[in-house]
């Protein structure tokens, strides 16, 4: 059936199908962040109901960053409250840069504490002690 005319189409179909089957599958197999449901077609799932408290603390005295919506657009804050690690990590990095600019020669310190409440009542806590500026990744 694959005439020279549709050989390109055959290649396209297979690449498309591979991506569309493997990308959602990666959520169940290799994706580290289970709160990140992008590309997984998990519509109306329980993860959507997750509510997290995310606290950023800066400096050696671990001063809490009070008004996050004064630094980040509120959509980013809402995504962080859904426990999206990639976003939380990027926010921590942004705070590191700001902290670094403020403290000049001293190494910046940003610590993140994440406490999530799942729909079944289970609590999940992450972060706290490590410096996100030094680790780069949470």
């Amino acid at each position, binding site marked *: *059936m*694959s005439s020279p005319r*549709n050989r390109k*189409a*055959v290649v*396209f*179909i297979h690449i*498309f*199908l591979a991506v*569309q*089957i493997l990308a*959602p599958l990666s959520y*169940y197999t290799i994706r580290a962040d289970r709160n990140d*449901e*992008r*590309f*997984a*077609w*998990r*519509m*109306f*799932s*329980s993860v959507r*109901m997750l509510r997290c408290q995310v606290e950023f603390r800066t400096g050696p005295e671990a001063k809490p960053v009070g008004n996050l*919506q*004064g*630094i*980040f*657009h*509120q*959509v*980013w804050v809402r*995504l962080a409250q859904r426990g*999206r690690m*990639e*976003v939380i990590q*990027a*926010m921590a990095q*942004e705070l590191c840069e700001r902290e670094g600019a403020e403290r000049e020669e001293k190494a910046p310190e940003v610590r993140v504490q994440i406490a999530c409440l799942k*729909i*079944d009542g289970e609590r999940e806590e992450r972060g706290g002690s490590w410096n996100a500026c030094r680790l780069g990744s949470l």
Partner: protein
Amino acid sequence: MSLVSKDRYLDYFFEFSTTRAKLALFRVVFFSLIALDGIRRLPRAARYGASDFNVGQLAWLEAILPAPERSAILLIFLLQAYLGLRIAMGVAMRSSLWLLTALYGYAYFVSQLDSFQHHYLIFLLLLLACFVPWYRDPDDSARTRSWAVRLILVQIGIVYAYAALAKCESVWLDGTVLGQQLPTGWTRDMAEWLGMGSAATAVMLTEAFLAFAFLSGRLLLVALPVGLGLHAGIQWGAKLDIELFSYFMFALYILLIPDSWFEWMGRHIGRSMGTFRTAVVRAVARRPVVVIATPISLTAGWLLADSLPLAESTLFAALVSALAILAVALAWLPRGIGAGPRQGADRRVVATAALLVHLGSLAAIAWWPETEEKVGDYYKLWAGNARRLGNWDEAGQAYKGLLKLRPKWSSAHYYLGVKAQREERIDDALGHYERAQRANHNDHRGFFQAAQIHHAAKRGQEARAAAERVVDILQRKRNSRAEQQQLQRARGIVEYWSRK
């Protein structure tokens, strides 16, 4: 021995055929929705580029794509509306589709600010639509083969399959998640009557069945009402913020309507449609029509696009004018590049159609009742975000834009007053607060700030009058802590000037 032979497997894609009438109906409905979606997304443009912080959907792509910026995203949404209408009306479809897919893809992938999964789905469908043979075959047959349409159906099947898989967990199957997602109403009543766990299981099984139907191409007559029912329940029962997702799904179910229905319609109304089309073609294929239509369409189109109450409207007018000229030029390009027509009369038909659709699309965008509302919401969100982020210059710009559309929006006057006060332009601030008071006599904020300014300037009568109004408004409602403090302060001002 393989279960499915290679030929049968490839035939699944390459022997798939459908009626042209069905494709045409799907195109009109789906791309009209794309256009409407473009208008409805305008307010969301306000969030892009705020405080120069962004996280892309894919890290490797983020490094390549230009950083998102509010004005650029706004233009993309406007172009989405314009191109959507152009494709729906069948003009310059190939070039419009590729451009639309690229712009839509950029807007989605550039930032996680867009967290709607169906936007990703629509990007995939647009990509596949680029390969659908929307044009008539030279032999003018009623049916056409299309592996891309098959792949669209497969894609929907994959979405349903994974959606069902995601629900194979105890908190879904026992009804906990559904119980929290359903608001009070007929769907909740129905789910409670069935038992929340049974209803949740039924949703999962429905999705699994739809996956089977879309992937296998079987039981489509059953899948049609079942799928439409599921999405109607989500749209009107669950009341979730899913924008036009259900409507896009309704449009996709057009592809499940049996071909025989379209063939029947083709037999009964196809002839009269053909006569009508021939009459229109004869009317517009005349040289004077093209000569007259070109300047009228381009000028009126420019004026319509530029009439949008946005700073970006002139750039939008320039871009769509260029696209219209390109569409006309495509009519004269040879087959393969211009996808089209080959003789003088045919070229004139295509060129005139492109010009008329250009004008019609811009008229629809400019005069659609929601456009002004959504542009207003865009300014409102932009202003609020900029203010929260401490960017008062931008906030001022946005509030001024908002006031052009909603002159009685007291918050805009109020915050322009706050901005003026921050810049120590006290007289200007007072002017804004007075406008806020006139715009909404029950909004205490303008009165409160005016009372403070008059009090500080020792204008007792004015200070007392404004403070009395604050007391009058706030003592009639439940107040926040800040409002309680303002009430105390206003009472103090009234008392102070009463003693004088």
